[in-house]
């Protein structure tokens, strides 16, 4: 459950942002979690629900998570394809070796505070 420590990092960052902008309450947090980030979205949400409720700043905050589709590049013809699940073969040349492209980050996009 490394999601817990990532949520702790997020809460720390929210405190800094609130201080910087002179706000007392976080209303919403919007995140992008890449398909290759190694983070389970449900666990992240679960960790947020537990830890944020314990904290006056984030008690009522809504967490919005977006996860873009995974992107794969064919090792033979270079074609890139989006897919929910890893495709068996390249749609263009039938090659089976496909490399994941990007998608390994967790980005805090925007925070709404008052």
């Amino acid at each position, binding site marked *: 459950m490394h999601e817990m420590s990532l949520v702790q990092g997020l809460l720390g960052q929210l405190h800094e942002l609130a201080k910087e902008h002179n706000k007392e309450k976080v209303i919403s947090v919007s995140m992008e979690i890449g398909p290759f980030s*190694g983070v389970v979205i449900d666990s992240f949400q679960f960790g947020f629900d537990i830890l944020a409720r314990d904290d006056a700043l984030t008690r009522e905050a809504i967490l919005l998570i977006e996860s873009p589709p995974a992107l794969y590049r064919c090792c033979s013809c270079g074609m890139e394809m989006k897919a929910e699940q890893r495709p068996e073969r390249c749609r263009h040349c039938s090659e089976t070796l496909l490399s994941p492209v990007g998608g390994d980050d967790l980005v805090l996009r925007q925070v709404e505070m008052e």
Partner: protein
Amino acid sequence: MCDACGCDLKPEEHSHDSRVVEVHQSLLAANTAMAKKNRVHIEEMGAVAINMISSPGSGKTTLLEKTIEALGGSLRIGVIEGDIETDRDAERIRAKGVPVIQLTTGGACHLDAAQIHKGLHLLEKEEGGAQLDLLFIENVGNLVCPATFDLGEHHRLVLVSVPEGPDKPAKYPKAFHSSQVFIISKTDLLPYFDFPVEEAKAEALQLNPDLQVMALSATSGEGFEQWLDYLKEVCAH
């Protein structure tokens, strides 16, 4: 999307006394920045660092013991051990006569770059720990969480032992996406388990075509030459 302020909420979900701050920053940014510093620090020590990731008991410490026996005379090896509790693994490595420090995470399921930063400073204080050719970081036994955290290593190595079964790449893709080397360990046990080595290799290569795959046994020594050659080559660069 809300038209009034452009945030991701529906209009009825919030009031506009509030303010939306655009952040667009990675949650891993602090870890990544520290990992970068660690990499420089490790290079100043003269070393190449290898981060070892596997489930508990796949044979990481045993592989290190045998590696030190084989290469300890020709390469300066240091080890940072990560475990949730106890310094048993560090004791095993210390008995082989190389500088080692134990990091205990106190419950956390992975090492992060800040812990390694601390670990590097501690290791430098150990006899022979300041100048190294090879630094092994044995991560906490866990095939999931450690894969998300760059420690400042140069190579990441994922181990799966024969008794665990060949389906690990498919089930834990992140560890395989992010590694350069995949080791199938405990091959002396192949007669007793259903582990089709070639299939497991092929499946891992499908996930990550750049993986270097090796199969070996620390107890019988099978496949060890290839492993030692790999280490020597890594150090020569």
